């Protein structure tokens, strides 16, 4: 609208112009008439005859009209064009379908683990409902127990315009509502994740929140790939929002559906792992633990189990958000004596010790002001080989290897060598990059710390002081036993081809060499012997080539802030190989809250390993 002053100004100006224009116009019209006589016309010109007054007024109005048109169409053109565009163009998002998630099954088949389902939200506009009784009957009949409590009472509130009555209706229910065609009822379609296997691999998968964003696990890590790209449809529309064919501003970008991802997880291994872990924790009177099963020849994860678990379909029903976390990846902890095998491997690879080297074992040694003791005192006063260190889990033996790395004492050179191995060869200082959300950072102290480095590094040789994730440890472990090839750990096998049956596989990727091949085989054999000679002996693995190492780390008591003798984390890591000694699987088990102190951690973890290992032998058909 014109504001007053502006209007007045325009109009007075217009009046001037028009006065001239009107007389001009009149004379133009007169001239058009060739019969008009110039003399007579001039005689009457300037006289405000009544006809001329009328002509002037009409001319004035027309001039005002043209000025106003000039203002609207020329001066304010951009403003109105913007208004027109905002009003006339409709931008619609074409939702991309989120990729589904599959896992491997027996015989190379794949099975869906996460699928999409169209569900409907039933809502009402009470202000436009004609027959509340009819609506109530229909909703009761169709939606039944999915009706949101209290919503039906609000139906007769004519002031409301949007009221959700029920969520998660399926296609059949929606059809029934549509068929009834009652005023004031509406359906809103949306896509929802469904889990045909229930809670299987819940932490590996993660879930999708209400905004359609993946949270935790693969859903978060591969969110952008799974999500795809929404399309855009921008068109000029009519008043009912029906697109028109006119207008050059039309944009049409089709939606790109998300990738259908096939995990390297094996449905049966995963299922077994979860069962075995749950049973084992129950036996150890523990509640929290994790297990990971990896193919050491590819770096592919076959199973990652966590307990307690949750149901991704009802992800809101957890007691604590920590249940969403995949602790194999998202939790760094002290792996304990498991680290001795890496220390021994370092010594062997550096050539400072050989499988035949021995050292004189005492039950305790002093490093600076710290006393380091063995748990197993029975072999004190004997000469021990590297294999014996692993067999009896000798802390003093691990410190001896560190001394050898420094040429006989714990010095900077030795520490630097160990640090180099932990970070470069075993790649334990950085996240592995596995396709899981929130991978935790590890902690490995530098070898050139001003004070306490000697004690710290002595402790690190047997697994205290560094904090690592299970995925870092098992990835390094796989390379240590497979000939030294460090494979990039992964949970993704590849993507599902468009045929919906075959998989476009990602190739396993070697990203580093941890040990020389022969050293790796030596260490593999030592691990077999150490397990073979340990508790249970030969009968334990029925003659199969299975090796492993336990570990127990004291936990920091949250009350005192110091290492506790009662709170321990038990770990067991091991592998199973066929008769050619080719490792077929690697398993790492962690039991967090074993309550009995001492060795109870590994005492809880080892049976879980045994049980899982036996399953793997059968499942993989490992030869004896």
């Amino acid at each position: 609208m014109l504001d007053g002053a502006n209007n007045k100004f325009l109009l007075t100006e217009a009046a001037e112009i028009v006065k001239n224009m009107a007389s001009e116009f009149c004379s133009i019209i007169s001239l058009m008439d060739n019969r008009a006589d110039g003399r007579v016309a001039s005689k009457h010109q300037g006289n405000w005859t009544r006809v001329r007054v009328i002509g002037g007024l009409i001319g004035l109005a027309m001039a005002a009209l043209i000025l106003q048109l000039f203002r609207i169409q020329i001066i304010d053109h951009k403003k109105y064009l913007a208004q027109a565009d905002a009003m006339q163009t409709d931008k619609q998002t074409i939702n991309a379908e989120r990729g589904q998630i599959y896992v491997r099954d027996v015989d190379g088949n794949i099975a869906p683990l996460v699928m999409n389902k169209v569900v409907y939200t039933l809502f009402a506009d009470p202000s436009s409902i004609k027959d509340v009784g009819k609506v109530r009957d229909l909703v009761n009949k169709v939606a039944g127990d999915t009706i949101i409590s209290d919503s039906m009472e609000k139906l007769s509130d004519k002031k409301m315009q949007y009221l959700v009555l029920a969520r998660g209706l399926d296609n059949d229910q929606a059809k029934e509502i549509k068929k009834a065609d009652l005023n004031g009822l509406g359906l809103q379609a949306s896509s929802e994740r469904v889990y045909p296997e229930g809670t299987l691999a819940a932490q590996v998968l993660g879930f999708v929140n209400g905004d359609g964003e993946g949270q935790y696990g693969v859903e978060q890590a591969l969110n952008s790939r799974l999500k795809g790209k929404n399309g855009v449809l921008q068109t000029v529309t009519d008043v009912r929002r029906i697109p028109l064919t006119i207008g050059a501003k039309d944009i049409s970008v089709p939606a790109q559906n998300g990738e259908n991802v096939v995990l390297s997880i094996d449905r049966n291994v995963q299922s077994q792992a979860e069962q075995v872990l749950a049973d084992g924790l129950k036996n150890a009177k523990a509640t929290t633990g994790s297990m990971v099963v990896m193919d050491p020849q590819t770096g592919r994860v076959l199973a990652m189990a966590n307990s307690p678990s949750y149901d991704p379909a009802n992800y809101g029903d957890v007691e604590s958000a920590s249940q969403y976390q995949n602790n194999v990846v998202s939790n760094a902890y002290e792996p304990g004596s498991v680290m001795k095998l890496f220390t021994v491997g370092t010594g062997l690879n550096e050539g400072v010790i050989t499988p035949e080297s021995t050292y004189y074992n005492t039950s305790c040694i002093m490093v600076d002001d710290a006393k380091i003791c063995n748990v197993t005192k029975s072999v004190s006063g004997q000469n021990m080989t590297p294999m014996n260190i692993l067999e009896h889990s000798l802390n003093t033996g691990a410190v001896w290897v560190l001394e050898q790395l420094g040429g006989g004492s714990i010095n900077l050179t030795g520490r630097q060598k160990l640090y180099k191995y932990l970070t470069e060869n075993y790649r334990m200082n950085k996240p592995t990059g596995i396709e899981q959300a929130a991978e935790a950072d590890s902690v490995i102290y530098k070898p050139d710390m001003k004070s306490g480095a000697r004690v710290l590094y002595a402790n690190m040789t047997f697994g205290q002081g560094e904090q690592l994730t299970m995925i870092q440890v098992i990835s390094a472990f796989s390379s240590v036993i497979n000939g030294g090839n460090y494979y990039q750990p992964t949970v993704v096998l590849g993507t599902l081809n468009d045929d919906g049956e075959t998989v476009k596989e990602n190739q396993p990727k070697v990203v580093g060499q941890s040990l020389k091949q022969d050293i790796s085989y030596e260490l593999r054999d030592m691990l077999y012997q150490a397990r073979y000679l340990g508790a249970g002996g030969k009968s334990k693995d029925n003659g199969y080539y299975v090796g492993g190492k336990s570990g127990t780390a004291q936990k920091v008591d949250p009350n005192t802030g110091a290492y506790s003798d009662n709170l321990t984390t038990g770990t067991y890591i091991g592998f199973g190989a066929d008769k050619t000694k080719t490792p077929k699987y690697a398993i790492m088990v962690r039991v967090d809250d074993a309550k009995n102190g001492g060795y109870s951690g590994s005492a809880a973890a080892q049976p879980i390993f045994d049980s899982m290992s036996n399953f793997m032998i059968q499942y993989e058909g490992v030869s004896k």
Partner: protein
Amino acid sequence: MVNTWQGSYRKNYRREASAYHTSHSYGNPERSGNGSNSSASGSDIWTAAKSFASGVWADLRETGNKLKLGRKHRPDYLLFILAIGLSALGLIIVYSIASGVYDGDTATINREMAKRILFLIAGIIAFIVAGRIPLEKWKEWAPHLFLFALIICAALPILGKIHAPLTYCALGACRWYMIGPISFQPAELMKLATVLFMAGYLSTRLSNGKLDDTSTLEEVIIVMVLVLGSVVGLQKDMGTGVALLAIFLLQLYLSGMSKRRLGFILGLMIVGFILMIIVAPHRMERILTFTKSGNSDTDYHINQAMIALGSGGLFGRGLGQSVQAFGWLPEAVNDSIFAIIGESLGFVGTVGLIIAFGVLIFRMLERINYLDNMYLRLIVAGVVGWFTAHVLANTMAMTRLIPLTGITLPLVSSGGTSLVFVMTALGIVFAVSRYTTHRYVSEDEIMKGAGQDETNSVRGRRQRRSHYTYSRSN
């Protein structure tokens, strides 16, 4: 010529005489009744009222002298060309947005376009026929036509109330008769009848020397109240009311009525307007919403029109590229067609259209200066008032200069009977254009003819004209 003059004189004389004799049939009751009997008894008042009414009735019926026309010459074909051109433009615009307005339904589009073409043909025929009917016939028919229009206008709302057949009411107003598939708006006939009737009445009053009599003022007010009452009061048709007011004002003004009388009529109109607002306050609201945002339908309508015009820019989106026609802008093929033209053809299109209308209006207005017969002058004045009121009320409402009244853009937007009546009116002006003189006729000159016979002035002018041409040829 002399005979006619004598006849007129006799007639005139008889009327004057009858006035003195206070006969029951003819005469001016005002003069006989008013001054003398101020303290009249009941029966006297009744008698006075009766004689007043019969006097008014007689004055209104009088068609005056037989029309005396000059030599016929070639009519102004520019009127015809502009009328056809503007109608064709309307047809093209409507066709360009038909798919938007009629939802892409080919059958409906074809039907509507065929209807418009048929009405255009009917309009052209009406133009030609009206242009050929002798002008004295119009003068003769005018009172009958006017009475007929008044009756069907006044009857419509009453018939509509009782849901009589053939009536059509919409949005709380009864404005149409339905005769088969054709809707007929009697208000359109009313405009034509008013132009013809008032031209005849006023020119007769002028020639009788009674133009500035109180009786004329009274009679004009009675006619205006009847006409506006039946259209604005009963049919609630503000648009036609505006057009009728313009017809009345232009004809009264150009008839040479004294400024005091005109001022009185204007004053009465203002009083009437105030009364209307007091009776129905929503009218005030309607006028106010045009400046303030009132969130009403009207507001939406004008906003959409402004968006259409503004988004058109200098050259427009192009013919057939209007988006506003797709349901955004109400009445796109009717009252809002100007906004669609602005959107499709831009500033160039709207100004071009206004210039075309301006040429037509000023062309007609300028004819008045070359007509030496008051009856013909007033016919043209009435048509100019009618036509201009429609053009300005429509376009100025679309550009938010005045409130929206719901009025057609003549020739361009109007389909149906409205087009036929506008074409008829232009056809009559076309006929009038055959009788223009070759010289400028001043208003003083033609108004001095008051009290004289029409033929006198014609003769006098003819003499002078021939003398003038003669001397000029020398």
